[in-house]
């Protein structure tokens, strides 16, 4: 028997679509979910500030070492909530499927979505499914929106970095970028690199449990554009200078190796399971200790500090030679070198 695939008719709104949703999609993701099949989900939310975020995922290829687009779509949106200090409540899930996608692939993605949502403790409460003609999408695109609440006393923002603060990174950088790149381009690295895609909300909660909320100034996940771009965004939003030391930034040996071969700079590679914490100096050691005691933060390190702005906001990196250089935002795409 030939393998089941998604057809245009699955998106028509008719019986095929109902069958797909009821038989193939909902059973896989309903864990903790509360599907009423109404036009909108009803949510009970605490009487607090609400955080709302949305993100679309178009990663190519949808399956990569260490995960797939489903895991990414849940982790990414959960992390966006967590970086605002929000506790995730509910997630919407919209699938745009290219006709011809294997049903088995769809199911694998949905399973990942369910597992990741369970891990993060977020419920998928509403969704949408569309099927588009071959060539109109690349296998599958996913949009997720997330709602969370921000407990009182938390005030986390990219504009809150203050001179004297300490910059902590939760682990190694560049893993996701290299994993995707090597999958996409068939680099055939001898030591494959796994994507770090993972929800970080529990790590964030651990930090909030261990130090006063008002000591936590900034949380950011350095996704596209990498650590360099994230730090620049923070420097600009907060109007400060950030100084980091290259030697202190954790990078896996295999990522370093791949970067040297391809001419990439790990500081600009995407991450999907790391965060930057900017914290009041007196609580930095405690925050680091707590992060290091968790699986997702075991490689955490203090990488630098925040200073008063001189002429304009900027990020500097201290090189191994002891000299200092400018760390700019990513411009355009990183391409491998020719020579």
């Amino acid at each position, binding site marked *: 028997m030939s393998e089941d695939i998604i057809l245009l008719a699955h998106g028509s709104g008719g019986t095929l679509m109902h069958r797909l949703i009821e038989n193939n999609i909902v059973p896989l993701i309903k864990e903790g979910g509360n599907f009423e099949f109404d036009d909108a989900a009803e949510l009970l939310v605490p009487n607090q500030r609400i955080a709302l975020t949305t993100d679309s995922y178009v990663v190519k290829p949808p399956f990569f070492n260490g995960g797939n687009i489903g895991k990414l779509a849940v982790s990414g949106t959960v992390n966006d909530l967590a970086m605002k200090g929000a506790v995730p409540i509910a997630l919407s899930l919209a699938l745009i499927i290219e006709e011809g996608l294997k049903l088995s692939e769809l199911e694998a993605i949905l399973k990942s979505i369910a597992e990741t949502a369970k891990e993060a403790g977020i419920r998928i409460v509403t969704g949408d499914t569309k099927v588009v003609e071959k060539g109109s999408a690349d296998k599958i695109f996913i949009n997720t929106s997330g709602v969370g609440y921000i407990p009182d006393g938390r005030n986390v923002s990219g504009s809150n970095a203050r001179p004297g603060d300490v910059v902590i990174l939760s682990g190694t950088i560049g893993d996701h970028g290299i994993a995707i790149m090597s999958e996409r381009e068939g680099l055939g690295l001898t030591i494959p690199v796994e994507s770090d895609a993972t929800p970080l909300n529990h790590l964030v909660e651990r930090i909030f449990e261990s130090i006063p909320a008002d000591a936590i100034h900034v949380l950011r996940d350095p996704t596209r554009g990498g650590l360099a771009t994230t730090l620049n965004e923070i420097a600009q939003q907060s109007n400060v200078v950030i100084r980091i030391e290259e030697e202190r930034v954790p990078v896996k040996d295999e990522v370093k190796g791949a970067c040297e071969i391809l001419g990439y700079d790990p500081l600009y590679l995407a991450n999907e399971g790391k965060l930057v914490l900017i914290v009041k100096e007196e609580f930095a050691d405690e925050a680091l200790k707590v992060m290091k005691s968790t699986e997702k933060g075991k490689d955490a390190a203090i990488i630098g500090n925040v200073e008063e702005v001189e002429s304009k906001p900027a990020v500097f990196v201290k090189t191994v030679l*002891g000299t200092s250089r400018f760390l700019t935002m990513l411009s355009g795409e990183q391409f491998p070198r*020719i020579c």
Partner: protein
Amino acid sequence: MVRLIDEFRDPELLRPLLQRISSYDDRNYSLMEVCGTHTVSISRFGIRSAVPENIKLLSGPGCPVCVTSQQDVDKAIELAKNSNIILATFGDMMKVPGTKSSLAKEKAKGANVVVCYSTREALDIAEEHPEKEVVFYGVGFETTAPTVAFSILEAKKRKIKNYSVFSTHKLVPPALRALLDSGEVRIDGFILPGHVSVIIGLKAYEFLSEEYGVPGVVSGFEPLDILITIEMLLKQIRSKKAKIENQYKRTVTYDGNIYAQKALEEVFKIDDAEWRGIGLIPKSGLAINEEFEDFDASKKFDVKVPYSIEPPNCSCGEVLRGVKSPFECKLFGKGCTPEHPVGPCMVSSEGACAAYYRFERYTRVVD
């Protein structure tokens, strides 16, 4: 696992070297690197500002994207406009501005331009699309040329008839000779390219010391490599004994990679070539041999560009000859940035302007 990165960035090893280099304070020393990867390392690790001011590090014509002539850039763009052609290129060429357009712009307009990481990918695309012509945009020095040569040999073996190469490959040693002949810039010593030398070997540079009395050291790319190379050059210059030395012994040999050299000889012939900023250099390019002319895009397709003009006020030419530092270009950081590059040296990640802009701009602003 053998770790070959951290050891070469160890501050404990770097510090004493820097101290020894500082003792060469008797005169000005002008050293030129002729490899884009060296340019990036020197900028990225702040080597230029770590060595004393009397030791001047100049960037030469070491970025293959940058030295590609405007006419060749325009020709590749014309090839891409042909709806029957899939143009396969290394990513760095995408944004290089031609006289009127760029590959990135043509791609946005619908041209079939594919970024490849290797020639093998281009060959596979040709095999998957027998109805199309796949043209590989061959840009690079002796480092990349062998892989292109092998792709042609492979295409012949696999009987892939819709694959061809637009070869603008260039050779490093003739460019060094041209720079010295012009006498435009004082060069006391060359930091010689590591990757290129893996292929051509130390022997290819002997003319520098023998005919011109200029020392050269083939160097690795890590901070420790480059500092050792600088010290080796300073020692030679001070003792007034010019020779070609090998700092990058872990990969470079005297004879180079004979196997790769043979492939180059088989597929290519040495030809005159037009370099941006330098002009026509005799016997400095690689054209495809008659025997393989079925794989020669310049023979297969009649590409004509009416005229090619380099961007006005762009100093890429002077930068490539080491006459100007990128900071001395009027457009640097103003009209020309990596987001909106005017000349190729700001486009390529290996270009001197892009490297100075990314890593050294601020030090300069503070000055």
